[in-house]
């Protein structure tokens, strides 16, 4: 059995967009360019990068929601594309937007998810309550519609959903963005517990330097679809002669972490292809 939780080799993914009918123009956005990295089983690896840098695309490829153009991916030894069914049984994902049936209660959303994974009701309810309690969510909220919950509460339910089946691999796409400091701390403490008690492999994308430094043993900097540097927080700071991770990112990527985005960052990735 491979000792690697995540193995990504020369991963490329681009998106083609077509505009207009009569004078059709198409452009290509290179979301991932030759990305390679490894995460050991039980390790928490952080990916830092501005909006539009390719973090979410990478998470989607690993979650079997996107098929890569080129490259190899192995998750817990299972190959993508090819062994999607095995991967799906073992991977949990939390995205930045807590996507739920907002009219349904937390209980109904979580039971729906549990049934999708073939869990029985009693086990799912027990596990859901354990996780929600650990995340500091009041049990009374369990039967309230999601639309009546704050963003922080919804995100805690989203994390509970990802952990219901106790997956050995977690993909966390900015899970604490928009949370209040107390909720953020609850989630971070829980993730630390998860790693120490269950040996869960975690890939975490974030803008938050302090969070990344606290949770991740190694960090990768991603900008314009390229993994430009990786190492421990100390190594990255030392390599760029910077006092903070933020400064290290600026020094190595040539842009600020909170900038980029789908605007300027993405534009630079686009190559106008042709006029038809």
């Amino acid at each position: 059995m491979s000792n690697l939780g995540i193995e990504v080799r020369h991963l490329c993914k681009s998106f083609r967009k077509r505009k207009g009918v009569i004078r059709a123009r198409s452009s290509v956005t290179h979301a991932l360019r030759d990305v390679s990295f490894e995460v050991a089983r039980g390790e928490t690896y952080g990916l830092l990068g501005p909006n539009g840098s390719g973090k979410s695309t990478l998470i989607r490829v690993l979650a079997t929601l996107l098929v890569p153009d080129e490259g190899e991916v192995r998750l817990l030894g299972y190959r993508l594309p090819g062994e999607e069914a095995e991967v799906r049984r073992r991977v949990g994902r939390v995205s930045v937007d807590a996507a739920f049936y907002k009219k349904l209660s937390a209980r109904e959303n979580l039971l729906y998810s549990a049934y999708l994974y073939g869990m029985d009701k009693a086990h799912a309810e027990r596990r859901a309550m354990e996780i929600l309690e650990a995340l500091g969510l009041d049990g009374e909220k369990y039967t309230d519609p999601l639309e009546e919950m704050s963003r922080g509460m919804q995100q805690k339910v989203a994390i509970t959903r990802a952990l219901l089946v106790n997956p050995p691999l977690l993909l966390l796409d900015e899970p604490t963005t928009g949370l209040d400091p107390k909720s953020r701390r609850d989630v971070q403490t829980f993730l630390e517990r998860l790693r120490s008690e269950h040996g869960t492999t975690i890939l975490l994308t974030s803008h938050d330097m302090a969070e990344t430094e606290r949770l991740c043993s190694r960090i990768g900097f991603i900008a314009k679809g390229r993994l430009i540097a990786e190492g421990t927080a100390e190594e990255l700071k030392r390599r760029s002669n910077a006092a903070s991770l933020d400064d290290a990112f600026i020094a190595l990527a040539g842009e600020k972490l909170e900038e980029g985005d789908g605007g300027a960052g993405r534009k630079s990735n686009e190559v106008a292809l042709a006029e038809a």
Partner: protein
Amino acid sequence: MEQVLRQAWAFVFRDYHLTRRYFSWVVVFTFYAVVNSATVVLIGVAAGDRKLTLTLLVGVLLWGFLSVLFNEIANSITYERWEGTLEYTFMAPVSRLIHLAGVSLYAAAYAVVRASVIVAGLLLFVDLDLSRANWAGMVVVLAVSSAAFIGLGLMAAVLPVFSPERGAEATNIFQGILLLVSGVYYPVEVLPRWLQPLSVVSPATYALSASRKLIGLGDGAQQTAGAPLSACAYELTVLTLMGLVMIPLGLYVFGLVERWAKRTGKLKRTG
């Protein structure tokens, strides 16, 4: 096996609770369907023509059932895109067959309950003796025609993957064409000649033809007793063949579009 049943149950569980949460809208839409059905059937009552009344009655009931079945399946992906949950459903370890079987199971149950409410509502407006109709045969026709409509629904369900809004629009247009060409309220022979070939490929045409025989509207003069099921052998054969072709075809098309969406990034909420 137990795990597979739980996975199919997930969709029934979800759709049941969504119906419960939107119950006031369900009541409003069902009320409208009852009133709309009554206004159509009362045209036959006003004409004093039992045959016309029965023709319209079969039309509103069967179309009410089949269109809801089609709609619920065709819009299942649209709902998920609106809620933003599509990616979570697609990354769950559920085969597409089980996923769509679960969605279809709830849609069929919902369509049966809704059609029963419409029948009960119509009894308040129309006084017809239907005791000699072949009800058992009608159930068989509904079951067989459901398969073909489920297949059509599966093919339409992928349209929102291309574009949520355009997909929903295309689904409604498709449903409108089925309503027009299938002879829901009139014989297909009254359609313009250039449109009539479409009625041949609509499963609703055969479902309606068989149902009218079974309720007591045969080819002969004013029949009152429902025909035996054997009188619908042709319609049942065609409907069975359509179901056998359309369900696997619907699953195949769904799979093709899912793979395309994963290559192009169209599963994402904003498309």
